[in-house]
């Protein structure tokens, strides 16, 4: 019983915040009062969560990787075309996209390892290169898949991909040494180094892992829409920032629960905000402002909660010392 209570306590914050926001939406927008809307929101959160989990590894490792959107693009175009040409079906699309994404991320990691230039510079340079490459390979046409590939937009395809991504992220972050190394490097670089962790290799690995999840996201996108077209002039930054916002919201509502679950709820909240803006006919040109305000509000709330907790702990310690 205690274990159950402990488990509920861990996840109460993220579930409660999401539930309250959904309840508010349903209260003020009657058209959203249906189970199908709730299911839609939960489904819409799946794809962004996949990319968010990849971005999380970078954030945890202290990397600034703006190239993850371009990695999605190149993974979709290379992986999608390869799988289609080889007739590998949707499983092939998933595998090829993941491989292409991993390769794109690995190049980023390798360059970081060899050049020792800040990841922000490497990632921006590679973003431009990947976007340009996408405009050249396969005649610059991107990728178009047939209807037989469109099985990842709805249940059970989307749920399978979510579970696959979650399993992979959980394995990497909680069961393998690299996950702990990334956490250690992100928490304190110097201490990690003193404890024998190869900081450069770890940060490079985080970049590669983000590429792997970019590939997974690319596969879900292709399996939902059947298309990916070339983008240029840093156009892929939007994809990267959206994933980052899911992570920031996720981190702020995770509490003591699993951060991967928190990011999924963060993605659901992001989709809920978009839905709310549509329902309330909010001018679309300001929608990013609203999303950004929400992210800031979540971060502020999270920072203040931490501050309050610290204050509480200090007072308790002081009281203990007095007694």
């Amino acid at each position: 019983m205690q274990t159950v209570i402990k488990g509920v306590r861990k996840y109460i914050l993220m579930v409660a915040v999401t539930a309250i926001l959904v309840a508010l939406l349903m209260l003020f927008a009657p058209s959203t009062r249906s189970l199908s809307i709730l299911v839609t929101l939960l489904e819409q959160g799946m794809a962004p969560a996949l990319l968010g989990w990849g971005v999380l590894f970078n954030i945890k490792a202290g990397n600034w990787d703006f190239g993850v959107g371009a990695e999605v693009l190149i993974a979709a175009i290379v992986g999608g075309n390869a799988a289609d040409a080889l007739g590998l079906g949707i499983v092939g699309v998933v595998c090829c996209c993941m491989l292409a994404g991993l390769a794109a991320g690995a190049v980023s990691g390798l360059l970081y390892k060899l050049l020792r230039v800040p990841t922000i510079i490497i990632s921006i340079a590679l973003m431009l290169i990947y976007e340009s490459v996408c405009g050249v390979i396969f005649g610059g046409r991107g990728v178009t898949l047939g209807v037989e590939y469109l099985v990842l937009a709805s249940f059970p395809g989307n749920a399978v991909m979510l579970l696959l991504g979650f399993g992979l992220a959980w394995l990497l972050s909680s069961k393998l040494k690299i996950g702990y190394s990334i956490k250690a490097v992100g928490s304190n670089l110097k201490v990690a180094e003193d404890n024998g962790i190869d900081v450069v290799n770890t940060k490079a690995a985080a970049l590669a892992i983000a590429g792997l999840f970019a590939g997974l996201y690319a596969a879900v996108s292709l399996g939902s829409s059947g298309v990916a077209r070339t983008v240029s002039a840093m156009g892929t930054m939007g994809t990267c920032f959206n994933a980052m916002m899911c992570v920031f919201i996720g981190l702020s509502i995770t509490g003591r629960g699993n951060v991967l679950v928190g990011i999924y709820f963060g993605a659901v909240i992001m989709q809920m905000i978009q839905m709310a803006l549509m329902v309330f006919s909010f001018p679309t040109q300001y929608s990013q402002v609203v999303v950004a305000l929400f992210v800031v509000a979540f971060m502020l709330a999270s920072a203040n909660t931490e501050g309050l907790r610290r204050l509480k702990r200090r007072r308790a310690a002081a009281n203990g010392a007095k007694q």
Partner: protein
Amino acid sequence: MKKKILAILLAAMLALGALSACGSPATDPSAPPSEGSEPEAEAHKIGVIFYGRDDALGSCVYEEVNHAAEVIGVEVEWALGDYDTAAQLTSAENLVSAGCEGIMFMPIEDASAQRVGQYCEENGVWFAICFRDILDQDIKAYVEGCEYYVGSCWEDDAGAAEEMVAVLAENGRTTYGLEKLNPSIALAVRNDGYAAGAEANGGEIVAEYEVPNDGNSQTHINGITNFLNLYPDMDAILMTTASQGAAEAIMNTLKQNTTSEQIQVVTFDLYEGIAEDFESGWVAAAAAGNSPDALFVFLMLANSVEGTPLSDSFINLSQKEIIVTSAEECADFEKYIDNPDFQIYSDDIIRSLNGKFNSEVSLEDFTELMEAFSLDWVKENSVQ
């Protein structure tokens, strides 16, 4: 030591890659050599700044302009792939440095028209604008006041949007969802056209989502899914653009979640597979066929560069759009208009619009041809 050398080599490769990606536009030196019927001792050179040549419109424009240049004996230098004002200005500078005496460009935003125009004016280079009207009145006044401004051409996008809403209304569809373009870009007049069309036909736009500028298909999927779930009465979707995979993402989402009896679509630009979608009733109308816009602007600019301007002042041309409403029309459209391998205008017509070959060429020759533009006209006048 070896590692250091490898690192330096990699850094150099990275820098070169980044430079090639962002520093300069995709200048295409593959412009055809001038081989007009009257060989020029010194062919004039015109630079063209355009967004790309990979989609249907881009490839048609590229072929039409190259062909016209060949016919009238003018050299063309392309700068492709610029998506902001700074990049377009850099391309203009590069093209002028490469010896271009005229610049045709499609401003990505109003500021681009001003910056590129100002640069051309200061350097005594003729310039003309294709596919765009300038919405900012101050910028428009500045550009129109430039001595070297030849003129512009744009499509009646708002009118085409209204016409397409009327087609939907005839089909009994009056509750719309809008795939909206960001109001800051020039093509946003399509939003206004759809709104005006809805009002004129007793319809209503009940919801909208904005076209993502990162080309992320998830935005389209989520937008359409929300339309379907939140507005069960919605019976049509107004698409402002089919490019960057928008059409495929939207149509695939619709096909997975609803039927063509429930939802129909009208769209700007055609996409792969639209003929089948016309046949199965998903698409009610599509507006496209504006590629001759660039051809006429190019010919107008060439006349100024070659010293036979059509007018003492600037010229505003208007390009008609074709509204396709059936699979049959779609097939004709793809054969005659949306086909980079087919030249809409014959070599004789092109020459007749150039002062070098026709000393009596006038603005009326241009406007008459443009007024006559239709699918039937192209089919009747087809000589290929």
